[in-house]
C-alpha cells in the first residue's frame, strides 16, 4: 500500500495568507470551472475566477497581483453559490483585494479602490453615505472628472441626490473605524 503523500496538502504562502484573511481553503478547488462559467464579469477578466484560484494555490503572486480580476469582481456571489467544493470564491476575491492593499501593492484598477476609499471616508465622517460629498471627494482623489457627471446632474434634478449631509451616527462610525484599525494593526504586528 502506498502511504498518502502529505506534502500535497501544503499551502503556498499566498494560499496561507488568503486562508488567514478569509477562512477559505483554495486547495479544495478541483478546477471544475463552474465559478468561471457562471461569473457575469468573467468575459472581461484577464484571469477567470478558477484561474485566479489556481494561481493563488500555486503561489504565483505576480499573476494574482497583476491581474485585473479581483477589481472587476462585482461581488455577485454566483461563484460562491455554485462551487461544488464550497470554496467561497467571492470571499477569496475580497481577501486578495485586502492583501493587495496591506502589502502596499498598487491595485491594477486604481479607481476601484479610490472609490472604496472615498465611500468609507464619507461613512466615517457622516455616519451615513452622502453622495454629493462623496462625488466631490472622489473627483479630488482621482483627479478625474466624475465619469457620470451628466447622469449626476439629472439625478440631482430628480431629487435623487441628497445635498445636505446628515451627521447622525457620525460619532459612532468614527469610533468603529478607529477601533477596527487598532485591532488590525495589533493583528499584523502579532
Amino acid at each position: 500500500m502506498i502511504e498518502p503523500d502529505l506534502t500535497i496538502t501544503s499551502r503556498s504562502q499566498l494560499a496561507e495568507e488568503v486562508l488567514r484573511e478569509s477562512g477559505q481553503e483554495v486547495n479544495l478547488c478541483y478546477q471544475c470551472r463552474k465559478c468561471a462559467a457562471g461569473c457575469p464579469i468573467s468575459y472581461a477578466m484577464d484571469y477567470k475566477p478558477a484561474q485566479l484560484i489556481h494561481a493563488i494555490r500555486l503561489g504565483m503572486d505576480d499573476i494574482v497581483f497583476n491581474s485585473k480580476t479581483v477589481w472587476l469582481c462585482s461581488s455577485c456571489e454566483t461563484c460562491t453559490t455554485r462551487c461544488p467544493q464550497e470554496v467561497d470564491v467571492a470571499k477569496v476575491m475580497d481577501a486578495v483585494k485586502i492583501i493587495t492593499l496591506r502589502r502596499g501593492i498598487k491595485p491594477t484598477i486604481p479607481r476601484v479602490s479610490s472609490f472604496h476609499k472615498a465611500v468609507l471616508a464619507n461613512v466615517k465622517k457622516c455616519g451615513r453615505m452622502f453622495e454629493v460629498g462623496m462625488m466631490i471627494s472622489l473627483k479630488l482623489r482621482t483627479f478625474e472628472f466624475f465619469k457620470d457627471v451628466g447622469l449626476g446632474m439629472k439625478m440631482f434634478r430628480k431629487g435623487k441626490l441628497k445635498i445636505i449631509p446628515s451627521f447622525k451616527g457620525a460619532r459612532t462610525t468614527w469610533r468603529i473605524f478607529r477601533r477596527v484599525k487598532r485591532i488590525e494593526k495589533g493583528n499584523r504586528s502579532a
Partner: protein
Amino acid sequence: MTLEYAYYPGCSLHSMAAEYDISFRAVCDKLGIEMREIEGWICCGTTPAHCTSKLLSLALPMQNLCLAEKMGMTEVVAPCAACFSRLKAAIHETAEHPEVKEQISSILDEPLPKSMNVLSPLEIFSKGIDLASAVTTELPGLKVVCYYGCLLTRPPKMMQFDECEYPMSMDRIIRSLGIETLDWSYKTECCGGGISATETDIVLKLTHDILEEARAVGANAVAVACPLCHTNLDTRQAGIEKKYGSSFGLPIFYFTQLMGLAFGIPSDKLGLHRHFVSADELLSGMRKG
C-alpha cells in the same frame, strides 16, 4: 394585533431610492404593519467595506442590530438588498466564528444581540398577509418580470431566503395583486451593482442583456427590490439604449410601488415621478378601480 418591526432604511432609501422608502411605508400603512425606524442607524458599509476590511464590514451592520435590540425588537426589516445582505452577513459570521464575535463585540463595546432576525419586505408580505383583499385597483395589461438580482438570495447558506437560482416570492406577491408576472431566466443575473460607479462599460452590457431578455419574453415592466438594481436599470436605461442602439422604454418599478398602485394609493404618493423612464403611458387607461 398589529405587526411591528424595527426598520433599517439604509442610505439609499434616504436619497437615491426615496421612492422605495415612501412606497414601502405607504403599503405597510395600508396593511396595518408598523415600521419603527432604528434610531441613530449608520451605514452598513456595503461593498467598499467588505472589499477593504472584514471587521469593518461586520461591525458597521452589527451596530445597527445592537440599536434594534435596545428598542426591544428582535426582527429588523431591510428593504435594500445590499443592506439586507450585509446585516445577514454580520449575524452569520459572528454566529459561525466565536473569535470574530468577540472582536466585533469589543469594537462595539457591548454584547451582541442574542436573537435577531433580518427580513426583506418580500418576506413580511409573504407571511400570511391577505394582500388580495386590500386590492382596489386592477392593472390589466401589465406584464411584469420580477428581477431579484444577486444579493437577496445569494449565498443561500447565509441568506436562507427563497430559492437561490429561481426565486418566486416577488412573483407570488405581485400575482396575488392580480398582476401578471412572466417566467424568465434572468431573475438572479447580476446588474453590476457592486462596480456600477467605476466600470460603466461592463454595467451597460449586463443591464442591456437583462432588459433585452425582459423584452424578449414580452414584459412591459420590470419589478425590483433593490436600489442598486433600480438605479442601473432605470437611471442608466437611456445610456444603454444609446450605446446599443436599442429602444426599450421599460418602466422599472419597486415592487412596493406596484402594491401601492393596486391598493389605490395615488402615484405621487408612491414617488413614480422620480423615475427616469416614465410609467405614465403604460399606466394610463390601464387602471380600473
